[in-house]
């Protein structure tokens, strides 16, 4: 459809309105014309009929037969002239009794006889369209009563030219057509103008939107003054802009942080290499430089891998294979990994995780999560401090909590540990494998698996991280 191809709302509205106006006006005009025509013809027919009735008394039937007593008749309409009237009288055997002079010897068309007057259109001499009325009547024999016999059946047709009414109707049609055209033009102009005015705020809105810079997403689009139909769009747009701004800022901060975090170890590597290259040094010195570079790059690699994992979790690109996982099976190898480190620092491990404790999780991702939490606890626990592991089941959830002593974080700041690149001590730049990403990874992964992670700082500098997941059903009879 053409209508679909028109992209402009304004053009569509105008086109629709004009079409509607024209259709309505055409319908109304047709009705008016038809009614007017009916009325005119009715009146016209009545006029013809009364002419006919005036003629009837003049039709005589006597010894001479049926004839028209025309001498007594003085009806000017039957004179020759402009738009004259016509009549013709027949007997029922078809013989013409009389005809008006206006016929000039021609015949009028005769309709189907009936007891009532018959009205019909006909062609008059000179090919003029006309209207005729046929009246059938019985004319009794005139003269003395005894002479009277069977009355004669006579048919009288009176006709008039319809030119005047046709002229009237044509004039009416022209007037109506003119009105329709003018109405359509007015409707189009009015619609064009009104729609233009109504859509002006939309154009301003689009200009405003076009002018939005990525750096100023926070500045909202003006909602006041917009048509109420468009206001929800603008409001949604503002909400979306807000969400975008938050996401953008987070992304920007994240990128800046990541760059900052990578800059320090890079500076270290560069410094080591430049000093080594600046003057000859012993193989022992070079060896220690290389070892140091390897250590720094290992740390950077761990950070980049965490960043990548976080990005994948954010993008939902980590496929999850959820199954019942026994917590002990996850914990054992991770604790073994840290055993030497903890032993060297005299850290006491209090492990109260039940042998049956199980959760519904992706075993690989859960391993990563718990590994990060334990590594974090071991990193921050004080020498000779305590690491406490516990499991609890409540309301269909199994919670694993890992607590360490020696925490210097403020209780109010506990939840900040999940923020990317947040660090309890800002100066611990990359000395360890902790880059302020581990716990945000934990939090993200827990949410992905339908669980939650919570951080608390308890009395006596105990930092406790609690991981909760839906409890897993370990098939009965399966050995631990």
């Amino acid at each position: 459809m053409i209508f679909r191809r028109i992209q402009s709302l304004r053009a569509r509205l105008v086109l629709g309105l004009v079409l509607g106006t024209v259709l309505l006006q055409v319908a109304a005009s047709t009705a008016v014309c038809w009614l007017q025509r009916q009325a005119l013809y009715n009146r016209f027919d009545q006029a013809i009929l009364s002419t006919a009735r005036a003629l009837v008394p003049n039709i005589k039937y006597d010894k001479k037969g049926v004839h028209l007593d025309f001498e007594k008749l003085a009806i000017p309409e039957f004179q020759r002239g402009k738009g004259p009237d016509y009549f013709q009288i027949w007997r029922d055997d078809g013989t013409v009794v009389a005809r008006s002079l206006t016929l000039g010897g021609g015949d009028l068309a005769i309709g189907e006889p009936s007891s009532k007057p018959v009205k019909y259109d006909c062609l008059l001499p000179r090919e003029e369209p006309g209207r005729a009325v046929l009246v059938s009547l019985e004319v009794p024999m005139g003269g003395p009563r005894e002479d009277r016999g069977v009355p004669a059946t006579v048919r009288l047709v009176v006709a008039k030219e319809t030119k005047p009414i046709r002229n009237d109707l044509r004039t009416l049609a022209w007037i109506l057509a003119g009105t329709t055209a003018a109405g359509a033009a007015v409707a189009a102009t009015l619609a064009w103008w009104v729609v233009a005015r109504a859509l002006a705020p939309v154009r301003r809105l689009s200009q405003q939107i076009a002018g939005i810079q990525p750096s100023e997403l926070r500045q909202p689009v003006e909602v006041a003054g917009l048509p109420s139909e468009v206001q929800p769009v603008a409001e949604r747009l503002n909400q979306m802009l807000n969400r975008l701004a938050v996401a953008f800022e987070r992304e920007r901060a994240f990128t800046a942080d990541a760059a900052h975090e990578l800059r320090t170890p890079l500076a270290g590597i560069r410094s080591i290499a430049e000093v080594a290259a600046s003057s000859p040094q012993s193989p022992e010195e070079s060896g220690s430089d290389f070892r140091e570079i390897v250590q720094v790059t290992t740390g950077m690699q761990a950070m980049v891998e965490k960043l990548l994992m976080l990005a994948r979790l954010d993008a939902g690109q980590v496929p999850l294979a959820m199954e019942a996982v026994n917590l002990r099976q996850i914990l054992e190898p991770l604790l073994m990994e840290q055993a030497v480190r903890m032993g060297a620092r005299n850290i006491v491990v209090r492990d109260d995780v039940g042998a049956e404790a199980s959760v519904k999780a992706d075993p690989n991702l859960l391993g990563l999560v718990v590994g990060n939490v334990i590594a974090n606890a071991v990193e921050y626990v004080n020498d000779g401090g305590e690491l406490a592991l516990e499991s609890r089941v409540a309301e269909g959830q199994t919670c694993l909590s890992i607590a360490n002593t020696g925490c210097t974080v403020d209780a109010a700041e506990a939840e900040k540990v999940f923020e990317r690149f947040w660090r309890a001590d800002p100066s611990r730049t990359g000395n360890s494998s902790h880059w302020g990403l581990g716990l945000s990874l934990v939090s993200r992964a827990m949410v992905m698996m339908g669980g939650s992670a919570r951080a608390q700082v308890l009395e006596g500098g105990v930092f406790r991280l609690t991981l909760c997941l839906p409890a897993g059903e370990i098939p009965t009879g399966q050995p631990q």
Partner: protein
Amino acid sequence: MRVLVIEDYEPIRRSIAKGLAKAGMAVDQTGDGEEGLWYARSNPYDVVVLDLMLPKVDGLTILRKLRAEGFKQQILILTAKDTVEDRVRGLDAGADDYLVKPFAFDELLARVRALVRRSYGEKSPSIEVGGLRMNTSTQQVWVNDRLIDLSAREYTLLEYLARRAGQVVSRSDIWEHVYDFHSDTTSNVVEVYISYLRRKLEQPDQPPLIHTIRGRGYRLGEAGA
């Protein structure tokens, strides 16, 4: 020339210290703000290379404390904080120079040398005392236009004496500015190095460059030069 490096990131701290030492400077290093402040207070360093984010006491606090206590060392801030506000804050707190990580070690070295020159009130990298001429940037030494080959330690000792040419420099001054914290101050290493320098610089037909002032120390060049 004695330098203190306070930087908590070990790879950077160790490599800087190593590089500065190779350039003939006596270097002390620490990764801890508290310890750094103690070092800076107890030794007459010519230059302190200072990181801002430090455990226990941060760099800006160290800087403000040292300046408030009237210490006049040349302080170079070495940090990853690179915004204009950070630089302004650092310099306003009393720093003499500001270098952002990552940096080229050669640039750090050049800046440290420039700070050393400034601490002795010099602008030119060239020092001339009698027939002795030194270029402190290239660390080259000439005596009567004859290029002399010196070891790093010999050079540092000579540069310190040259910077204080005409003055009597005590053995403890030399210890404090030419040797780092871990050197053994009881040995006669200063005398040994002075004798090395004399052997390389002085010729029998020329007047001596390094004078021994009995009981007080040494003097390069004539008194009051």
